[in-house]
């Protein structure tokens, strides 16, 4: 795509960001943030980074957007929606000065960059050892698998953190509000129609992720979205946070990943894969991760336990 397109896209991105950050209406800001996320995903597409574009659209715009809408709703229910007055001018002045300073500093650093080749070639040279066609997956589950392992546990810890906010009298109960819909309504038809489709897309994204753009995080997000749709349509309710099968699903992926890493450590190479079986091992880990990520994301959105039935 042309430079003109890039420049226009960047202008739109900055405009959406400004409206999201400084707009008067809080709900409007959330909506602009979601628009902004989609535009950022377009920027990644323009740069040819399809994996990042998928992650940004699904997680950065989608899941984060839903979370923010949920938070807005929760604040509204609590009667705590902060008024949307502009902050007093000295605050704005100092913040603007700080922002200008930070931006200037970062731009100076960018201009002073010496220009180096990065690791594109190194990855291309080494990814054959993992028998993976997608270099990003090779980095995520091969070369820097430790980052990814810690990251999946950050998600598990975040879920524990969110659950810790549950009021004690409803502990063990169900997160999120109850949704009911007419069995012949539009939502219900959506809820019946879209899940098989979403499931298909999710499975495809993991399967393709080995060689083409995609992977556990993107696929997990799609599956989480499917679940949210089912809940919204009133076809099924969220599970209880005390449910043992649910907890098993949450820890399955990280447990398989960590287990593989520790087994490697016992065999002499922590987070190493047996030669010739790297691809198989990575695919198994990715499938397990996808299921756990989907469940964890869906529950992070649902929030703390809220009701007993």
């Amino acid at each position: 795509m042309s430079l003109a397109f890039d420049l226009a896209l960047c202008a739109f991105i900055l405009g959406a960001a400004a409206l999201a950050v400084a707009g008067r209406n809080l709900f409007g800001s959330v909506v602009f943030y979601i628009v902004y996320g989609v535009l950022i995903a377009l920027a990644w597409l323009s740069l040819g980074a399809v994996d990042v574009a998928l992650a940004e659209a699904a997680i950065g715009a989608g899941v984060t957007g839903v979370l923010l809408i949920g938070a807005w709703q929760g604040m509204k229910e609590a009667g705590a929606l902060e008024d949307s007055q502009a902050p007093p001018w000295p605050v704005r002045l100092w913040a603007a000065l700080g922002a200008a300073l930070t931006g200037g500093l970062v731009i100076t650093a960018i201009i002073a960059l010496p220009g180096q080749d990065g690791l594109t070639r190194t990855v291309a040279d080494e990814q054959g050892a993992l028998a993976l066609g997608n270099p990003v997956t090779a980095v995520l589950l091969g070369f820097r698998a430790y980052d990814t392992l810690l990251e999946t546990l950050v998600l598990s810890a975040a879920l524990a953190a969110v659950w810790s906010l549950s009021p004690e009298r409803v502990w063990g109960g169900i997160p999120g509000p109850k949704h009911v819909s007419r069995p012949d309504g539009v939502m219900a038809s959506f809820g019946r129609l879209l899940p098989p489709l979403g499931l298909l897309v999710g499975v495809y994204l993991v399967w393709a992720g080995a060689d083409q753009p995609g992977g556990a995080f993107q696929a997990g997000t799609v599956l989480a979205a499917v679940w949210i749709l089912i809940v919204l349509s009133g076809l099924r309710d969220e599970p209880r946070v005390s449910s043992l099968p649910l907890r098993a699903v949450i820890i399955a992926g990280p447990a398989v990943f960590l287990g593989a890493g520790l087994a490697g450590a016992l065999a002499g190479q922590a987070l190493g894969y047996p030669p010739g079986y790297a691809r198989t091992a990575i695919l198994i880990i990715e499938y397990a991760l996808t299921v756990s990520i989907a469940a964890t994301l869906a529950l992070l959105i649902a929030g703390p336990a809220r009701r007993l039935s």
Partner: protein
Amino acid sequence: MTELLAERGHVFALTGAALIALGFYGFMAQRAVIRRLISFNVIGSGVFLLFGGTGYSAAGVDPVPQALIITGIVVALALTAFAAALAVRLAQGGDRDDGTDDGEAGP
């Protein structure tokens, strides 16, 4: 041609820097937690765009930054999810539960 490509990376890197500044303003000037979380995420995606833009060459975006960005997006989501839940719980349930509510006994 290469020069133009290098410039493309620069366009996005500089946009990233501008997003960081915008988000910084929002994070400092705004009091509402949701707005500060939006600002946090704007800074985050600005940092990532800078990462991708500086890692861009004729061969595309360096895959190592791409992988790190995906990790970073997930971490940012985890932080946002907890921060949002915490802020809502503070608004709904107050600073702390009274002593008997959580049934905790002991120091």
